């Protein structure tokens, strides 16, 4: 079932986009925090190449699974636009452009997923 990796790819893309959007939300929330440096996630192709790292093993349900929340690498944004006297590098304009881009890409990935599903259904039932 090689074609099904299509779904795998689409869902990985969606999870990467959701994580990137989370980082953007963090930047926006900290837009007035002194010394806060704008962050971004690693590129999607890099994440695909590295593979998602497994979370820490836990022996008790109360333990924290460290790596699970940040399965996508987060780094300081090298292309942050602004820098204010208090050391903050978040630009609200840049972040809103990013948020919109992410939203569109998410929509794209979601429709791809749906198309794939229609394809499988067509193959299985022959009914459009």
């Amino acid at each position, binding site marked *: 079932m090689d074609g099904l990796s299509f779904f795998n790819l689409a869902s990985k893309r*969606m*999870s990467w*986009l*959701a*994580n990137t*959007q*989370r980082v*953007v*939300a*963090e930047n*926006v*929330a*900290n*837009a*007035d*925090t*002194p010394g*806060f440096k704008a962050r971004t996630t690693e590129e999607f192709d890099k994440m695909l190449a590295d593979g998602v790292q497994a979370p820490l093993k836990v022996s008790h349900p109360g333990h*924290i699974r*460290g790596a699970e*929340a*940040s399965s996508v690498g987060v780094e300081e944004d090298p292309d942050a636009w602004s820098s204010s006297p208090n050391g903050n590098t978040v630009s*609200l304009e840049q*972040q*809103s452009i990013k*948020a*919109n881009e*992410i*939203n569109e890409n*998410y*929509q794209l990935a*979601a429709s791809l*997923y*749906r198309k794939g*599903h229609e394809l499988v259904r067509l193959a299985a039932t022959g009914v459009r």
Partner: protein
Amino acid sequence: MDPLKSISAIAASGMHAQGVRLKITAENVANAGSTGNTPNEDPYRRKMVSFSELVDRASGDSKVKVSGIDRDTSDFPLKYDPVHPAADERGYVRTSNVSSIIEMNNMREASRSYEANINMFDAGRRMRRQMLDLLK
């Protein structure tokens, strides 16, 4: 934790922090004219909000929190008003160190940041709906 769920929590922390800032600004503006009743009594001292990053250990999200509300230690401006009850022997009254221009600026910035957080909240909600639409 699901990143889409985190987005709302992070945006909410940002909105809360900006709300506190706006509240403090309102307090400053309301008390801009507050002076003491005797020459020894201090007039209203301007309050300032500072933010810091708060990392949620359970989810790894970096939220924002109000790390402190401090007083502005700058000098009180003097106003010549000999009949005022708080006037000193030379006839000067110490007035509060609130500057209406700074407060106006602060207010604008707080509401702009609040709006940005609302937009992020909305973006997260839209993404979640797109994902849930896949189930239909």
